[in-house]
Each structure stands twice: as C-alpha cells, then as structure tokens.
C-alpha cells in the first residue's frame, strides 16, 4: 500500500499526483478521468485557487511536461 496526500471536497477524494511550485495536480481517486490543476493558497493550504487564464494553464501543463512523470514511476 502507498500513502498519498488527499484533498477531499464535493464528497470526493482527490489524490495529489504531483506538486510543482504552487500548482497541485489532482486526480479523483475513483475516476482517473476527473483531473484538475489548482493553486495552493500560501496563507491557507486548504484553499485551492483557480488557474487564472489559458496562459497560466498552459504554463502549468508545460511545467508538468518538463517534470517527465514517467521518470517518477517506479
């Protein structure tokens, strides 16, 4: 068994797949297709802020691309 960080809201548990800078990459534990990127509020870690616009969304995706998720898989 792996221990993972969970963010619970809307009666669902979202697994923190990875975190880069303040960006949180979240996936629904029960439905891998239910995914989102949110930002952590430095003053309130329980508050998940929206991505501002498309430019920031693409920036967050490119950060993830560079991180190369496949290298993290054991």
């Amino acid at each position, binding site marked *: 068994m792996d221990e993972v960080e969970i963010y619970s809201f809307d009666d669902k548990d979202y697994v923190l797949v990875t975190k880069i800078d303040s960006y949180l990459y979240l996936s629904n534990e029960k439905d891998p297709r239910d995914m989102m990127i949110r930002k952590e509020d430095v003053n309130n870690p329980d508050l998940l802020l929206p991505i501002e616009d498309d430019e920031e969304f693409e920036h967050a995706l490119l950060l993830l*691309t560079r991180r190369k998720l496949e290298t993290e898989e054991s």
Partner: protein
Amino acid sequence: MAYSNEDRLGIPDFMQKTNTYHQRPASSQYRRQTNARNMTEDDYEVYKEMRRRSLDRKNIHAKQSRKKVDNSLKGQLKRHWKGIVFSIGLGAAVFSADQALDELFHEADIINQNSVVSATRQAVRDHELRTDNVRNWQLNTSGVEQDVDAILDNGGDPLIVLGTLGNSLNKTYTQDELTSIVEHSFGENPDTLVRSLNPERYDEGIQDPDFKADVRNYIVQQTEADIARSHIDANSQLEAMLNSGQGIQNTGEKGMGGK
C-alpha cells in the same frame, strides 16, 4: 489479397463493401505529421474537462489528509496525466505550444462534426452503464453490435467506425467488449484486423498510436472534404437562387417597364 496503402490504410474488401469509399478520391495527405499528434478524442475530452475545472473561478475549500491506497493507483493516475500532457508536450516540441493547442482544438472540432464518429460514439454511450466507480462499468455489447451493424449497413465508413470504437473502448477493462463488437461486426479480432492493414506500422494493433494518428488524420480529411462539398452545394444552390431571383427581378422590371 494485396492492399494498397493509399486506399484508406489498405482497408480490406469486406469492409469496402459496406461503404462509399469508391466514390471518394484517394489521398496520401492524411499521413502528414502523424507522429506529432497522438492525442485521441477521448484524451481531448478529458483534457477539455480538466481545463474547464482548472479555470473554474470558484475557490475550493478542501480537507487535507493522508491515506493508504493500492500500490497501482498512483501509477495509474500518473499514466493518465502523462497521456494527456505528453500528447500536448510532443506537439509543443514540434510547433509552438499555442500552435499545437490550436491545431488540436481545430482537429477535434472537425472530428466532432463527422457523422459516423458521432453515431459510433453514441452507439457505445447508449448501451453503457457507468457509476462513479469504473469497476462497476458495464456495456451491453449486443446492443452496440446491432447499432454498429446499422451504421455500416447505412454506408458508414468502416475505417472510421473501427477507429472510433478503438478510441471509445480503449481502457483495459473494455478490451473484452471491444473484441466482441469488432469480431461480430468486422469478422476478425481487432488487433489482428488492424495489424493486417499494415503489419510493420501497426504492430501494436488497434491501440497502436500510429494507427490512431492515421485514422484521426483520415477522419479530418474526409470531414473537411465533406464540409467543402456541402459549401460547394450551398454555393450552387445560392447561385441558382440568385439566378432565379434575377430572372424574377428581370421579369418584374420588364413587367413594370411594360406598364
């Protein structure tokens, strides 16, 4: 028999009998840049929803905790992210990120306009029973088989039907259903069938990224050609109406002038 690679990926005769392929011009352009864009329609839908939820202005108040989960879960979730992000990342490496996204959006919009793609997706959706837990996913395969048969009988392009089925049923837990449907409607195992089209290029079978990219480009090209034809038809009708209207106007003018 020997298949020509320019003939719709060398689609076999038994598939050609159920479509209108022979009326369409052959082309090799659909093979352009196939390795640069491997995003499936399914990936695109997930991507689109992910983008929407990420940009949703509503702040989320979450409760943090730690939890022990099955070893495979995190890897499974990462692979899903990788499937979405790397398909974009590969595009971004070739074009600029903006161009890659624009092209993906454009292609997906075109594909969504294809009537055979829509009908095939609908055939799967209409017979799908799904809860939040994918382990409870069920499909009435005989219902899908009947609908797919009807699409093919009505002239639906078998290559588009086959590729769309592969995309709609591309999860490990849907493989048995995909096999059953393709064996029923096409008379052959899906992987065997796709490999037979081009054994060197499609060695991974129906989920081979090259096959998916080729079918995707083929659908885009066919749909764009259909749209262009409909515009030509519409222009011809408009021209006929204008000519007809001109005739009426001329008649009117003559009539008025006659008084």
